[in-house]
């Protein structure tokens, strides 16, 4: 259990360096954006540390969700597929 907590903290530190957490400004709302969601923080760190995909990420909204640069969704999708990922594309907010 302790090792798992350590690993999570380590991932979070790595993430903070690679993809800082985005802080909302007062009344901030962004319309029609795309976010990428992965299973855990390690996967997000993996995405952010790979320049092929990381270039399209602006910051993270949580430990598993990152904001994609508006207008670069298609290029991000192509980059993901070229890197061997098989992303699901949806308009759902998720669970």
């Amino acid at each position: 259990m302790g090792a798992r907590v350590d690993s999570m903290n380590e991932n979070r530190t790595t993430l903070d360096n690679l993809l800082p957490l985005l802080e909302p400004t007062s009344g901030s709302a962004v319309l029609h954006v795309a976010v990428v969601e992965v299973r855990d923080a390690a996967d997000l760190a993996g995405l952010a540390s790979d320049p092929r995909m990381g270039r399209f990420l602006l910051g993270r909204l949580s430990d598993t969700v990152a904001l994609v640069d508006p207008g670069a969704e298609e290029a991000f999708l192509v980059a993901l597929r070229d890197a061997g990922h098989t992303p699901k594309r949806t308009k759902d907010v998720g669970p």
Partner: protein
Amino acid sequence: MTTPGGRLQHILADDRPSYELGARHLDSARCKVLARQWGCKEATKLRKEPCIAYLAGALKDPARVRERWNALDTSQRAVLSVFKRYGGRVSGEILAREILSRGLASEPKTGEYAWKRKDPVEELRREHLLASLGSSSWSHAYYGLSYPNLAAHPGLLEIAEVAAPLGWKASNATDPPRVTQMRYASEVALDLARVADALPSVEEWKGLSGGALSKADRARLARTALVPKTAPIPVPDLECLCYEVLRGVGAVEVRGVMGRLRPERVRQFLSQPSAVQCRAWVRAWIEMSMWQDGIGVVPDRDNPQEPVRIEPDKLRASREMLTWALTRVAHGTGDWLDMDTFLRDLWDAAGEHGIDFYWGRYAWDVDFPVTRGRDSLPIGKERSYAYWVDREGGWVANAVFGTLYQLGLVERGSRSGRRPLWSFRLSPLGRVVLGAPEVSDERVRRGGKFLTVQPNQEVVAYLDEAGSGEATMLARFAEASSTSAGVARTFRMTRASVYAALESGLRAEEIVVFLEQHSRTGVPAEVMHVLSDSSRKREALVLREGLHLVGSRADAPPSKPGCRRLGDRWTLEPGRGATGLTGSGAACWEADEEGRVRLTGDADLVASARLRRFAERDQADWRVTAESIATARERGITAETIVRWLTAHHPGPVPPSLVAAVHNWAGPADGLFLGELCVIQVRSDRACRAIQESLEVRPWIISHPAPDLFVIRPERCAEVERWLARRGFALGEAYRPPAMTEPPPSDEPRMETASPARGRAKRQR
């Protein structure tokens, strides 16, 4: 497309609303007569408007309609039965052939008055129980029995029986061919799916006038779609035939010259039963004008002096007439029909002008014996027939043995001899589609166990056992390993193909059920594993698009239904109707030449986040430095992206020196020369020529950038100075700088003009 009983409609039946009395276009006396015929006893005392009002009600009154029906004679009822067979409206050419074939009227004799002849069609027209369609209200007897396009009163059609189908008997029996070829509906559907896959799925494309693909797109389609070619009878521009079929069934939408694929419609259409699809292919073929049988793609405009295509309206009528003849063949004995005999019988059945246009150059150039020596034949029927076979007969051969074979309606075969003897018969699918509604589609219902699934994810499909819907379903999640024609095709389930299927809306469970339902050997565990693995991996990385992102306080109440909290800072909401982006284009950065970037008050999340990716904090502001750009490069962010962001968020033009710096820091840096040069500036042409043509000085000149300037090698400067002094030039004048030229308008600054030129000019003394 199907009758209420679930059977296919007649191939030439048309669902469009048709019958209209058009009483407003009749004169008052005619309205009165009609009203009286429909049971209004006081019609003679009424004006036109009340008559029209009465007729409007009477035409829909079942009792009145029944009275009219009872008043009709047998031949008139038989005519209405023919109309019922075609769904209520019939083209004039087809109607004339039906009437003659059924013996309801005869060809008019020369000099015979039309009103004296017994013609039930004309009788029904006079009583307005048959109405002309569109503007074609007239007919002429120059080419024999002729009618305009007509529609029958719908109430009478409800009472009428459907006319029995006409049969076909070949005037000469023929032996079955030794070699035969047939295409199954599943093969045709796979070709269509291949062409649809090769078309752009998202963006539109620019085609030619009339909606055909451009030449470049046709070449690309031929390279990528790889539709198997059909030897030995060529079908020109085969991919374009598929394209036009897709267009005809609504899977490709064309507006003006812009085309667009409708992937949902493609999937929906290709999942239908074979017979339903095939009927739509034939309908699309009848209507298509930009692809012609035996010719291929044709231009939208023709040159009357030198035609490049068959006139589209005539070709449409000819295709209809050929289809009509084939519907009769569908109700014939099912024997093989040799080409020469079929052409003769078709000419007899359709008449000399049933298939009539001017064209004689086809991809499959058939050598018909009857056309040899046609010029020496005496004027008469045989000579006309020989010329008809040479022109229209060639088209019929290309249409039947090429196009309709390609669409799976015809089985063709040949017997070798001095000249191959070609013959054909309708395929089981062709009999169903062309023999509708009498012939049931049970004979072509497929979809049993047509697959063998191997542990290495290879799937062998036997297309003769597959329905077109099943074959295209397989092609959605497995790649065809070979494009060769044949009924046994190998497909391979790859990670990419399964992923593409899942992205198109198919679920992994549906694929498993499909394989279990159609596999002869079950589904190996390895395949199940690949499917579940692909599905799991896809679920592990999700791109959620078109959402609204709302900042929320940590102590905010739980998210609304349909929304989702992300940690304690953000809420995701489903995207609603609003369009446009907030935050991706706000001009909220102010940047200077030194790379300082100040956020103005209305900076939003996207602008702030972007800035943070390539700039570093500098007290209250941000600063773009070589180090911050290097960090951004490590993250994969290119100079072009940074400049794009700067341009999007900067209220005016971004300082060119900052743009140049970003490019230089991101590397490779623009190279330039900065150092000392020796320059001679002259005042006169005489001095210029003296230097330019001197054998002694010329080797020391590096360049001659302007008429009055010479750049000299620095190490030769003293020697040049002595050379000039010996020739009496007055050295020591001031350097006169040329006027500065403006850099060309561009986002990319030119380093040579933007950088400070610190070269020391050697002045003339």
